[in-house]
């Protein structure tokens, strides 16, 4: 149910984002989605890719420090209040969200959000119990390729 997310450290200066993306593009690895968090000095690029293990190797060989984190993809109704309802579930269960970002694709009336939880296993259990749909890796790949 969990997805593997790659994170890498970038200095916050012009041109730094392109290099890692080129490195994985050269290996034919497709990026499913990404998010960039930054401060004045540095940034963290977070990537969800098709072949995370290969991408991790490619990036590490090229000299980046890569961190592997488990995240959870959740289907949320793409209408006003859709996200708020999902968040209410998490809040009600006392689950701590470290950060979240939206998936670049939507399907039908659903948007996919990526959550980084302190405790992803408990989060998945709560989400499923409350009837929310957790998107697993294979499903995500099939969404992207159609």
């Amino acid at each position: 149910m969990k997805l593997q997310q790659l994170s890498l450290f970038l200095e916050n200066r012009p041109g730094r984002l392109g290099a890692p993306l080129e490195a994985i593009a050269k290996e034919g690895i497709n990026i499913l989605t990404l998010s960039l968090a930054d401060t004045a000095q540095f940034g963290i690029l977070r990537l969800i890719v098709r072949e995370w293990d290969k991408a991790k190797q490619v990036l590490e060989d090229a000299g980046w420090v890569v961190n592997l984190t488990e995240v959870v993809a959740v289907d949320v109704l793409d209408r006003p209040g859709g996200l708020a309802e999902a968040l209410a579930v998490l809040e009600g269960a006392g689950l701590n969200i470290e950060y979240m970002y939206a998936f670049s694709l939507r399907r039908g009336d659903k948007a996919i959000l990526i959550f980084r939880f302190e405790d992803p296993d408990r989060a998945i259990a709560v989400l499923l119990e409350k009837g929310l749909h957790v998107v697993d890796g294979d499903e995500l790949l099939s969404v992207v390729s159609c």
Partner: protein
Amino acid sequence: MLTELWNDAEGGFHPASAPDFLPETALKQVQLRRLRAVVSLAYDNVALFRARMQERGLAPDSIQRLEDIQQLPFTVKADLRDTYPFGLFATPMSDVVRLHASSGTTGKPIVVAYTREDVGVWSEVMARTLACCGLHRGDILQNAFGYGLFTGGLGAHYGAEALGATVVPISGGNSDRQIMLIRDFGVSALCCTPSYFTYLIERAAELGVDMRSLPLRAGIFGAEPWTDGMRDHIEAAAGIKAYDIYGLSEIIGPGVASECSAQQGLHIFEDHFYPEIIDPETGESLPDGEEGELVLTTLSKKAMPMIRYRTRDITSLISEPCECGRTIRRMRRIGRRSDDMFIIRGVNVFPSQVEAALLAVEGTLPHYQIILTRDQGLDQMSVEVEVTPEVFSDKIRALEDVRARLAKAIEHILGIRVGLRLVEPRSIARSEGKAKRVIDRRNEGA
């Protein structure tokens, strides 16, 4: 016969090591005899030295006891620059068989000379150094000190041959080939700067070579100050014993002092290099055990004798007996050099202090660089630290926390505010020789 006996003992002894075990009274006799001879040689042949002696009303005969050395004038690095290139030579060029020079990053280099006898002494003290580090005949020593004008390469080379070890004279640089030969030749010992070896460990891991699985068992590291934390890291990551050796071109090159198996201070080969510790401010001699600037006198050098040379290195002498059995005195590892020191907003700062702070926070020493700038007349110090897998996180907050802890640890030690930037791995240039830890841009531009 004797050689066979020494070589069989794995304790790292060699016939050349015999003076390391001289009883104190015998050692002092040798030192006094040699001191009187070298003072006469310098007085008779080096104009600068003679003039300074005469100014003080001294003649070679003024040296009657070892303690009389304290009356002699100091020699400083500027003297070598002022007399560039050959002004301090005590023998004619026809007796000089070798010249070496410092790289000369600022202004003129410093030139040093050796007679055939000096090269013999140098080989002997380097053989004693390597024996001290447990090397013997049958060892394969990869010599990654630079060959050329720098004294490191040829000094270690001659010493290893004198010891009877097998030398791989690879010189510095070409890290991938260094790693290939360490593996393919079954190299058992390697010498280079500690910062370069740290880089070799890193590079070997990238190439899929685990240094711990190789026969390499000893690293002989010198030419720059390094900390105990860096030693722990090297020993654990490469599965070797890491020995600190000490020397400087002005005195002879490497071979002035070396650690032994006890790794509790460096034995000074004091039958050739007479050590003193002085207060760097007043020039007063300090007793054994007290910290101050190391001053060395070459007792047997012919081409370019150095009388009371101020090394700028801060240490103390240890006269207590060493567990290895050597009777020659030891000095504590050099943590700092007075010329590595820089002053920022009135505070004296040594790079080793920054290193200690980084080690305390991270556990291992990351690559770092200190940058000094001047902003509207005010000096600024910032430290760039490469992000390591150990501290990297996907959470901004966690990285900000690391950054803040590093800055706080440094500020705590130095007592001044510093900027701290986390930078990408391998963005700080690696050196094949001495690591460049401080970039001073305070006097660049407006």
